[in-house]
């Protein structure tokens, strides 16, 4: 393999294109609105904003690697947050001293993670044992989870936490926003799981060819259940970050995050048909989306127009990636990830 060949192979990866896109979006926004976009205040506020939906995008990524999808991520996040919030308000409350409330915070986090795991287990069972299409199974279960959260709260926000709860979403550790640290750890963890564990390799290979995985005597049911449980737990962590930042929990927070999470995963080069995806791509997609989102905010583009832009962008990326549009595909020197 010649050096030029290796170089084209590198520059034609989706990750390389994404890095270019992220830089371009950053540069354009900086030029359009230099004093505001590049201000320290804006950069910090971005670092606090994106981790919550970025974590949901990681949850989406692992299910997409198997050719599935998890449309219940936001439902799981809110249900976990509501359960944690109820524990924190019922047993702790704003007046409790730090030490005691820390204990309750740990209990609340454990409860939230358990809710995420159980919700993921349900999704996994529906997909693996009952063989439901993931898109329908998780669409349905997402409504069920949201419904539980509404039933528990009567639809209103749960608030009145001890002060320690705000730490997770609003403080810094050695100058770095805590949510960003949480996201970085999860992204690194997922990267290692996907590339260095049997579970990750099996998930990728199942996504590449489910039938061959069956013929290779891979325990497919167990594999899928683990995938959806992981996604559920990632979602519940996102829910906790949202709860801490908002200092409350509600059944319908973050409703725009679902589309965003799907968009980021697809933009990040994860093949929605399964078998290919890299965490670094997802991270770059998160950055691009956050730059774009903040920039649009500063240019005072309305929220409704933003949804339209996300939707259009998702379709555009899919068209480019499937290479069906010859004119568009030739803009990017891309080889189709699956045969």
């Amino acid at each position: 393999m010649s050096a030029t060949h290796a170089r084209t192979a590198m520059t034609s990866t989706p990750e390389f294109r994404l890095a270019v896109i992220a830089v371009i979006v950053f540069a354009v926004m900086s030029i359009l609105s230099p004093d505001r976009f590049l201000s320290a205040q804006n950069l910090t506020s971005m670092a606090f904003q994106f981790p919550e939906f970025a974590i949901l995008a990681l949850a989406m990524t692992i299910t997409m690697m198997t050719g599935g999808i998890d449309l219940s991520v936001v439902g799981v996040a809110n249900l976990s947050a509501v359960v944690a919030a109820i524990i924190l308000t019922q047993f702790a409350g704003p007046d409790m001293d730090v030490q005691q409330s820390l204990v309750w915070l740990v209990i609340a986090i454990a409860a939230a993670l358990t809710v995420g795991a159980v919700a993921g287990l349900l999704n996994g069972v529906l997909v693996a044992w009952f063989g439901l299409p993931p898109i329908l199974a998780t669409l349905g279960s997402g409504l069920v989870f949201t419904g539980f959260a509404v039933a528990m709260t009567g639809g209103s926000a749960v608030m009145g936490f001890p002060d320690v709860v705000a730490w997770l979403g609003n403080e810094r550790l050695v100058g770095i926003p805590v949510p960003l640290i949480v996201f970085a750890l999860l992204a690194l963890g997922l990267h290692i799981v996907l590339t260095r564990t049997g579970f990750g390799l099996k998930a990728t290979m199942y996504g590449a060819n489910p039938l061959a995985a069956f013929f290779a005597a891979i325990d497919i049911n167990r594999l899928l259940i683990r995938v959806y449980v992981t996604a559920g737990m990632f979602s519940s962590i996102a829910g906790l970050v949202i709860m801490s930042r908002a200092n409350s929990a509600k059944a319908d927070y973050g409703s725009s995050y679902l589309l965003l999470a799907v968009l980021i995963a697809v933009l990040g080069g994860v093949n929605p048909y399964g078998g290919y995806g890299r965490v670094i791509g997802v991270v770059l997609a998160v950055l691009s989306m956050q730059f774009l989102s903040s920039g649009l905010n500063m240019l005072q583009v309305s929220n409704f127009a933003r949804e339209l832009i996300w939707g259009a962008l998702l379709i555009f990326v899919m068209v480019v990636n499937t290479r069906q549009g010859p004119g568009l595909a030739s803009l990017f020197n891309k080889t189709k990830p699956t045969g």
Partner: protein
Amino acid sequence: MAAATHDALVDMKGVTKRYGGVTALDGVDFTVHAGEAVCLAGENGSGKSTLIKILSGVEQPTAGTISINGTQHTNLNPRVSAAAGVMVIFQDFSLFPNMSVAENIAFSTQLGEHRTLFDLSRARKLAQSVLERIGVDIALDARVESLPVAHKQLVAICRALASEARLIIMDEPTTALTEREVRSLLAIIRKLKEEGVAVLFVSHKLAEVLEVSEKVFVLRNGKKVAEGPAAEFDAASLTRHMTGRDVPEAPPSAVTEGSKTLLDVENLTKVGAFADVSFALKAGEVLGVSGLLGSGRTSLAKALFGLVAPDSGTIRLDGEAFALGDPIAAASAGIGYVPEDRLTEGLFLTQSIARNIAVGRLDAHERRGFLDLGALMSEATDWLTRLKVKAPDPQAPVRSLSGGNQQRVALARWLSRAPRVLVLNGPSVGVDVGSKADIHDIIRDLARSGIGVIVISDDLPELLATCHRILVMKAGRVVDEIAGNSVTEDELAHRLAS
């Protein structure tokens, strides 16, 4: 010559087709005249399916020209090709099983007429006239799924005739037919030829249709290696041209005296697939399972590995029964299975060669939860060397390999698990001649090392070159058992199809 090519029905010149780096067809010239029956012979992977695909407009050639009825086509697509009268009857016939004979025969014709509604009485009339034309009697209202294979084939022929076929291409026309059914098919082919319809037989076993054919083309590795009047060919010379070998491979050395029984199958039954199958396999023995298409041989192979759940019966390995209908149980008991269709069932095409080999042993490669990627890679490299796979880089996707090397990767996956019994379904389907002989060598080596091997195949030279015993299946039952060194290829062919 110029005049002859002028009135040719189909005239292909210098047709070349490349898929990535693989040349499937290499400058092939090919002609068929009206009313002629032509044999296109070649082993699996010789390029004959590519040629059909190009002729029917499914694939575009990389180079070369195609004329049909004197019209040169630069951009043939399936519609243009069908309108010109080129009809393909695939091995599975592509019929609608839940519809009636009349509907199946008339369906495409009525579609082509762009009528809003399907006219059943016209359909029946058309179907009746076509059936009379070839002189067969099949109930017009019978559902196609209830028909025997030979009748399904006739329905497919009638459908082609109803759409005014001028050239009928038949892919592997005789693999599912008994000798008697082949004879009645030949009578119908003669009738079609008299009417000026041309027939192209595409197969790797064509000896049966030689007598009605005018011309023979033989493809090997994408090149035309022989061409001439059918009278100049016989079964032996066809095989020689297809394989490029004169001497048949050496049969396997005898099983060691007194070697113990490894696999013991008793009264295995799966309703609708196979019934009451019992056999024993010794360590170091290669057992062939053959039979016509639909005889139950593939279901049986899958049942041994748990891919099909039998209704009753037992399978014992080293005297111990294990859970049936569960591939994970079968694999951990020590059975390996290399599937028939490498591309969809066997390999993860987009994934690396190393991953494809290691996928069966990922749990064994884990150290405290993390994969030992170094060990995984060196084990893969080791297998590539042992099975002589010419792969520059174990990190390259497995789809970049040739068919023969892909098959070795599929084998390596199971061999790395050190199986006691290996079930190989069509071990050399779609691989080139050289690799085929190598794969047969590997099979004989495996047997010598004490593994019990079951080879499911309809490739007679392959069965004779690898198997100690051959079980013949028919309608789901084992009807014959043949010692591999006791028969010739012709005798074996006869016992399979009788």
